[in-house]
């Protein structure tokens, strides 16, 4: 099995402060991995470094995606290569309808990949199919991007975008935080529906709860900027029981 993502000795800092300190991680194609860890361990930093956000400075190490250097690509090139981030805090864009946003995004990615853009009709059909599959109301897609959405609606919207953009590597940054059980199931269904031999996912979470619905192939514990431990899905259950205290001490 080829690895889709290969992170080697990754060091990164934010505002001059080192956050990631030698992180190693391999995600083979077709697998779902979970990263768990205490607050402040660098989980979100990892998500932003992978997607190329300004201000997240890589000082050492490398990241290979599909066997190529990921870090030289712009955020939109990474998106075009099939990388998707479900944001922990989805951003509001006033005045821009959700449908317009998604159509622009999808066609920009299609163009990057040398595919023809979808016309308005094709896009509407695709949108209808996906909202139906996920049980998301039409109302949500007509509204302005995330404007006035509840926390749950924002997360559902992220999952809808993911379903439409069909990423090769989906990174979910605490998508489960603040969700009730119904919303959690929608998120899980969205991820599970995308599971395929040629796709992978990285689930960043603080709690084990989401992993009851998305069963990961591997679980990693991130503490103090490094992977402190890796294991199978049973590791998540163990963490739920013991908490992160052990990792806090280990690095203190």
């Amino acid at each position, binding site marked *: 099995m080829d690895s889709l993502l290969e992170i080697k000795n990754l060091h990164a800092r934010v505002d001059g402060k080192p956050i990631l300190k030698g992180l190693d991680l391999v995600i083979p194609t077709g697998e779902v991995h979970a990263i768990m860890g205490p607050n402040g361990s660098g989980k979100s930093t990892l998500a932003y470094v992978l*997607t*190329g*956000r*300004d201000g997240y400075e890589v000082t050492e190490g490398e990241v290979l995606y599909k066997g190529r250097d990921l870090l030289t690509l*712009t*955020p*939109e090139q*990474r*998106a*075009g290569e099939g990388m*998707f*981030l479900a*944001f922990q805090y*989805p*951003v*509001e*864009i*006033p*005045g*821009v*309808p959700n449908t*317009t*946003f998604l*159509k*622009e*995004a*999808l*066609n*920009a*990615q299609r*163009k*990057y990949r040398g595919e023809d853009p979808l016309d*308005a009709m094709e896009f509407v059909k695709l949108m209808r199919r996906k909202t139906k599959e996920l049980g998301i109301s039409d109302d949500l897609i007509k509204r*302005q*991007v995330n404007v006035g959405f509840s926390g749950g609606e924002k997360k559902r919207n992220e999952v809808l*975008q993911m379903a439409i*953009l069909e990423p090769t590597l989906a990174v979910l940054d605490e998508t489960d935080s603040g969700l009730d059980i119904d919303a959690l199931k929608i998120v899980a269904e969205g991820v599970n529906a995308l599971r395929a031999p040629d796709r992978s996912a990285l689930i960043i979470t603080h709690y084990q709860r989401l992993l009851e619905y998305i069963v990961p192939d591997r679980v990693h514990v991130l503490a103090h900027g490094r992977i402190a431990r890796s294991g199978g899905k049973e590791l998540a259950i163990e963490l739920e029981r013991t908490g992160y205290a052990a990792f806090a001490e280990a690095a203190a």
Partner: protein
Amino acid sequence: MAASIETTQQVQEMGERTYKYGFVTEIETETAPKGLSEDIVRFISAKKEEPAWLLEWRLKAYRRWLEMPEPKWANVTFPPIDYQDSYYYSAPKTMDGPNSLDEIDPELLRTYEKLGIPLKEQEILAGVTGVAVDAVFDSVSVATTFKGKLEEQGVIFCPISEAIREHPELVRKYLGSVVPPGDNKHACLNSAVFTDGSFVYIPKGVRCPMELSTYFRINAANTGQFERTLLIADAGSYVSYLEGCTAPMRDENQLHAAVVELIALDDAEIKYSTVQNWYPGDKNGKGGIYNFVTKRGACRGRNSKISWTQVETGSAITWKYPSCILQGDNSVGEFYSVAITNNYQQADTGTKMIHIGKNTRSRIVSKGISAGHAQQTYRGLVKISAKAEGARNHTQCDSLLIGDRCGAHTVPYIESKNRSAIVEHEATTSKISEDQLFYCRQRGLSEEDAVALVVNGFCREVLQQLPMEFAVEAQKLVSISLEGSVG
């Protein structure tokens, strides 16, 4: 908003980031001698075969203009204008009022085709509401389409020079009644030397069956354009009117000093939309149009309504304050504006809402975007007179800054003399957030497309006011205008 991506493609295909409408039409023109004098005013009036009263009106304005100082209130800077270094009359030679579209110089037809303005009526598909166009090329109207169809309803839509001949009573009654010649120096100059423009009269109770549109084109070098538009909506009528403007790229500045007067009688409604895309000058601020325009509407009748929508992306300097005088009880004034200034453009624009009648209402939505070294000012007046019982105003002014060399200014004046009136003004200034840009880029949009998307969203409330055909065009313009402002 599909427009933004499409637009970027178009612009890239052109191979250079330049003004799309910057070409010059090679056509024989008849031009008055350079400079301004009573003789030139007489020349223009004679050329138009005008009645004596109008010549007198022009001469009076001219003499007044000589005495008037330049308006100083706007936050714009430019060297003093040499009024003697310009031509005040320029007309395509063959175009002394064509009798039918077939007589139009094919070179002109090609020009308007290039600009995307349909001058051939048959191009419009049956069953689709058409747009009637009056095309003004330099100093004269070269074509007006759908005149016949409009006449069936009693709608008069023709060049103002024609209206002066054919409908002198209407022109004489209303010309200068909203914007008197002495209103300001630019309006005064226009009164003296205006050459053409559109005249519209919608009879009582008629809902104009199609959008009316005037397309202004400055072509000749060193030529000022001074068009005059007069639009009267009689009781119970409705009209939607659009204007668009472009000019070739020239190194020198050209003056455009237009006057637009709107009159709405009882229960009448006028919707006036402008997409202004005069040549803005190059990226170093060389050349471009000085767009000094006086636009004002009078809601004379009860329950009348005037709505201004403007998308201002062009011109080196824009100076305009489309205003509403709300005289009739329950009358409504609206002003929706998007102004984009990039590079070294300057814009000082806004509106005046003068509440005189009872229960008059006004709404102002202004969205300003400044990039590059541009300076932009919203300047507005909301005045509630003592008799305007129950008047209401709501104003929202938002500015967006792109880059740290530009400026945004908000200067509202609020004057209220009536206790029952409610005036609300809100203004904000901010920049496009990094979060928004990153979110869009993470979904695959380039930085420029992301900016265009966010800016179009910022302007949406205003762009929505435009008729459909114009809205799409305007969205593209928004994106093009910001080319090169990021990165």
